[in-house]
């Protein structure tokens, strides 16, 4: 379409048929089309097609002769209006998306193309405006932008909350009074907490990013640690209470208890290794000092006791040639109490050693049945009111700590007698059951109720109703159980109140050591 044809269209010249065709063509367009006359004041609309009527809601008589600005209603401050104005003044093409309003005031987004039409002299005579209602697209864009903003907002919040969580966890790690390291799969230090830096007197900058074994001139290049990380952790995750002793160049010998955990969860942290290091140097030293102190104390207590016991035996010896039953009885009781004191001193040391894990068993082969018989004889000789009956036999040469097991049996027999004052018979039964030797001692005494049965093996526990009548510290059974445990055996009780108790223990017969 050239300028002339447009001229004809506007002025109504040209063939009626072609005009009608053109009109029909423009009316069938989905785009709203207007033509303004730039030569008339205020650039009025001189043509609009049917789609423009449909988009704007105005009818042709309400449109023709008006300037286009009525479409923006009162929404006058849009920057696009300035762009339109400038393009029209300069006679240029412009393309804007502008908020327009239909006759009933409904907002619609108008994607507007405006292009000038020039005459032969190059003057702009008309402008053609082509309009599309892009409200739906605009709304979709708007929704999309809103959603993006919402997502950005959420991401920001999540990041903040993650940051806070991270800082929170980090502060826990830094505050905890135990050394913690995080290593990557190549054993490079990713994190070292404050306690680690303090304990091992190192700087954060010389630690982070370094391979563990290269840290501080290789002071962590410890064989046992390599064994833990290279050999044990890959197949035994996590590793707990792994003891490592090492002499560090500056801080001296350290005894450390390590927990190691390799992250197996798929993702960012996979194969990272958490290493928690507890410095037990001091604790172990205190335990040893405590045991040493108790050893010295018990030795020192036993020395005067030895003298007293000696003299009491001398007195007893002298007495035997004279009469005086009362005196004999008193000396006898003195002897009993001296033996009790001696036993208490020994038990005290045992408990201390068990607690610090220093109770050692010295295994040696011995005739188990013979040992039991000897203990029975000893106990029988000082318990004239009871009869200890032995039945069964193990016929085993057992490999274990004879003096400790003697202590256990002696303790169990003494208890049986002590807690069955009115029943004379104590029976001991020996047997071998599928690889275990079994020792049982039964009395028909006071018995132990269900509640107390669970607790009698605890340290310092005494069954309440017998506490006053029967003296003791409540450590005998605790020591017994620990000794049996050390021998990989089991000690238990079957009992019914007022009917009696049976204490039994089993010990595994190791093939190569016991036979």
């Amino acid at each position, binding site marked *: 379409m050239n300028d002339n044809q447009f001229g004809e269209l506007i002025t109504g010249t040209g063939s009626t048929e072609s005009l009608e065709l053109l009109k029909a063509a423009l009316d069938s367009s989905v785009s709203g089309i207007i033509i303004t006359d730039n030569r008339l004041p205020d650039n009025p609309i001189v043509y609009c097609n049917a789609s423009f009527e449909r988009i704007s809601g105005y009818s042709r008589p309400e449109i023709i002769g008006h300037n286009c600005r009525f479409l923006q209603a009162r929404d006058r401050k849009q920057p696009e209006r300035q762009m339109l104005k400038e393009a029209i003044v300069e006679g240029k093409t412009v393309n804007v998306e502008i908020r327009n309003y239909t006759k009933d005031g409904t907002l619609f987004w108008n994607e507007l193309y405006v292009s000038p039409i020039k005459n032969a002299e190059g003057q702009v005579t008309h402008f053609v405006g082509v309009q599309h209602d892009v409200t739906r697209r605009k709304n979709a864009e708007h929704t999309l932008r809103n959603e993006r903003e919402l997502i950005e907002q959420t991401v920001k919040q999540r990041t903040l909350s993650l940051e806070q969580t991270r800082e929170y966890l980090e502060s826990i790690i830094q505050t905890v009074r135990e050394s913690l390291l995080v290593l990557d799969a190549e054993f490079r230090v990713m994190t070292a907490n404050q306690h680690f830096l303090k304990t091992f007197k190192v700087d954060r900058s010389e630690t982070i990013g370094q391979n563990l074994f290269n840290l501080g001139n290789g002071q962590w290049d410890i064989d046992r640690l390599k064994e833990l990380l290279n050999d044990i952790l890959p197949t035994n995750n996590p590793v707990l209470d792994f003891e490592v002793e090492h002499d560090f160049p500056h801080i001296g010998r350290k005894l450390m208890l390590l927990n190691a955990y390799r992250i197996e969860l798929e993702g960012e942290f996979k194969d990272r290794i958490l290493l928690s290091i507890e410095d037990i140097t001091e604790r172990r030293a205190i335990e040893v000092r405590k045991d040493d102190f108790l050893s010295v104390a018990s030795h020192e207590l036993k020395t*005067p006791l030895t003298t007293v016991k000696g003299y009491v035996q001398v007195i007893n010896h002298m007495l035997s040639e004279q009469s005086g039953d009362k005196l004999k009885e008193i000396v006898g009781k003195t002897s009993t109490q001296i033996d009790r004191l001696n036993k208490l001193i020994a038990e005290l040391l045992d408990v201390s050693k068990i607690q610090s894990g220093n109770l050692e068993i010295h295994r040696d082969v011995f005739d188990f049945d013979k040992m039991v018989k000897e203990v029975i004889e000893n106990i029988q000789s000082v318990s004239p009111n009871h009869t200890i009956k032995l039945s069964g036999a193990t016929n085993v040469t057992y490999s274990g700590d004879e003096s400790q097991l003697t202590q256990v049996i002696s303790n169990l027999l003494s208890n049986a007698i002590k807690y069955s004052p009115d029943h004379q018979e104590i029976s001991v039964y020996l047997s071998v059951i599928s690889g275990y030797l079994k020792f049982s001692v039964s009395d028909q005494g006071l018995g132990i109720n269900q509640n107390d049965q669970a607790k009698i093996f605890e340290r310092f526990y005494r069954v309440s109703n017998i506490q006053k009548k029967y003296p003791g510290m409540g450590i005998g059974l605790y020591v017994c159980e620990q000794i049996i445990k050390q021998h990989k055996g089991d000690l238990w009780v079957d009992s019914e109140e007022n009917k009696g108790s049976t204490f039994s223990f089993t010990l595994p017969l190791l093939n190569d050591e016991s036979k």
Partner: protein
Amino acid sequence: MDKKKILICDDDAGIVDMAQLILEMNDFEAIGETNSLKLYDRIKTEHPDLIIIDLWMPVLSGDQILKRLKSDEHFKSIPVMAISASNDGYQIAMQAGANRFISKPFEMDEFVKAAHEMVAH
């Protein structure tokens, strides 16, 4: 027959006194020494038939003396009974070469019986 002579060495005078009394009551000649540093000289001058020695003594311990005695051609034949209130006394005594170990506090009968047996050899 002459009484057998037993030399008892313990840093605790109470134990030495008591042991001497018991041994004398049982027809031994008992002499005591509380300073372990002087024990070696006492052995040289007294020529005891049996030495009873405490393990845990200050400055020079019983097991040190024992080891020296048992590596000395002149004295290694003298029987030595070690006595101790220490829990690991038996192991220490045996390692040092004692002929017998009795833990403190001891039973008088056991103690006397052991003394008789040891001098008889």
